């Protein structure tokens, strides 16, 4: 009989204590982080309070592709390496230049260890991030490490079109095309001149 009343007492006591705990929780801080609005890697209050690791993705993770156009030689190897054809490159002629990094050192071709030469420039470099399967074959094949994977993975957009990453802007494209036209015109003029001189020479020889 004692156990019977003890049960009733325990029931009320534990309900009383449990309810006080859950009521108290209502007024204590909320742990939810409103993720897309709050940037977890830069928010200071989170970084101070958080006890786990906020390092984010590991360095070798394959995120969204990025292209460093100052290193690109428009060789189109990445385009050919891509198994699902999500990279589209158009290129035109440009001045023959040796590639240099920010410091000024010459950039070497990773495979041949020779200095990388740039003879053509891209007028269109599109990567369809919606199609990309993040296999990394393009980055592996690139001789100058111009195309590489970033650690970025957040890429919500409102349409699929917005997922096509365009690395060459319209102005740059127009400029490169104009430049290429100039080069071609120059080359044509040179050729014409050379032909003329040849003709003159031939004429002179005949005479």
């Amino acid at each position, binding site marked *: 009989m004692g156990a019977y009343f003890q049960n*009733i007492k325990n029931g009320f006591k534990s*309900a009383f204590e449990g*309810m*006080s*705990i859950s*009521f108290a*929780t209502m*007024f204590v801080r909320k*742990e939810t982080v409103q993720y897309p609005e709050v940037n977890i890697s830069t928010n200071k209050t989170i970084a101070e309070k958080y006890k786990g690791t906020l390092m984010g993705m590991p360095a070798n993770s394959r995120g969204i592709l990025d292209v460093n156009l100052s290193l690109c030689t428009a060789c189109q190897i990445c385009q050919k390496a891509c198994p699902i054809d999500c990279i589209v490159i158009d290129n035109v002629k440009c001045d023959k230049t040796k590639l240099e990094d920010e410091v000024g050192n010459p950039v070497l071709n990773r495979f041949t260890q020779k200095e990388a030469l740039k003879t053509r420039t891209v007028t269109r470099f599109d990567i369809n991030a919606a199609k990309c399967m993040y296999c990394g074959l393009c980055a592996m094949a690139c001789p100058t490490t111009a195309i590489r994977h970033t650690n970025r993975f957040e890429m919500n957009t409102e349409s699929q079109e917005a997922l096509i990453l365009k690395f060459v802007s319209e102005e740059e494209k127009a400029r490169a095309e104009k430049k290429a036209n100039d080069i071609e015109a120059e080359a044509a003029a040179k050729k014409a001149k050379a032909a003329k001189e040849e003709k003159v020479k031939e004429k002179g020889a005949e005479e």
Partner: protein
Amino acid sequence: MEAILISIGLEPIPAKIISMVIICVVVLLAFVTIGGVLTWVERRISGFMQARLGPNRVGPQGVLQWVADGVKLILKEDLIPDGADRKLFAIAPYFCLIGVFGTMVVFPWGKGVIVADLNVGLFYFISITALVVFGVLMAGWSSNNKWSLIGGMRAAAQIVSYEIPVGMGLLVPILISGTLSMGGIMAAQGWLPWDWMVFKSPFTVVSFIIFFIGSLAEANRTPFDLPEAESELVSGYCTEYTGFRYAVFFLSEWANLFVMGGLTTAVFLGGGNLPGVLEDYTILSILVFLAKVSVIIFVVIWLRWTLPRFRIDQLMDMSWKYLLPGAFIAFLGQAIYMLLTQHLPIVQSVVAVIMFLVFVFVLIRFIIRVRVNIREQRIPVNSPASDVL
């Protein structure tokens, strides 16, 4: 309403029918809104109690979440499983809805605001809510699914067991007021807390607690939600339901929460009674009633997120070994108490005030405990022992 329609030139009988249809639609819409908003309230409070935020995207603070959910559920395909008893399966949710919606007839919104003050109001209330168990049992039986069947059977067993303590608990207020009508029971109470039915004597307190626990079980609320125990039965009797029918089940469940709060308030907590000066303000009376109902609803939700679910044998133990004897003792005790003090109203009021003071004392104890717990929870996890002490 009827008078307006007759004044336009309608015959009395069509006018009566049209006005009834209009009232039905209005009450049904109010009912749907209450049920819907309560889903949001419950999810939000549960979020706060678990240190989360809860739904806060649709509308300001997420208040329109229930509309979004409802639209989603209505647009879903209406699936009836292979081998199900199609007729029973289709009709079961509406039994639940009617069982809850039927209580609106005697639902005391405030002093004098009641659709029909039946002289057997409380009896009608208990009988019509028993339709819910038919719906649940039909849903469980017709789904052709083990989980549904077990859920339905559990619901039947549970509601049959808990009807008795609930009925016995309600007998004590009936004993005091001497009537079964909602209006009569409300009129037997005053607006001051010690005039409420709960605090009239120690026995009414016991009967209130028993009634409250029993009605939790009847509304299938946690800790008594065995019919739809997620961890054991997937979703119990509504496992196979989708779309609109599922929405109807859930609507009736949350509306049942409101109805249960309303019954508790009207019978035990003084309903919408106002002080004598303000008696003419019906709106105020409705507001007082709704405020009390929301407190009860909050307590019910709060209990849900505090207590773990019972096992089925514990559930039966609780009903037959604890609540039922308690209800009998409360009933007998109240009868004897009334017999002894029938010529001593001063003793009755002193006892009522003492019971109220005991309640205040418990409340203060509770607030102290809450403060202690808030202080403890403010301490960050993993902090060194020196900070904790």
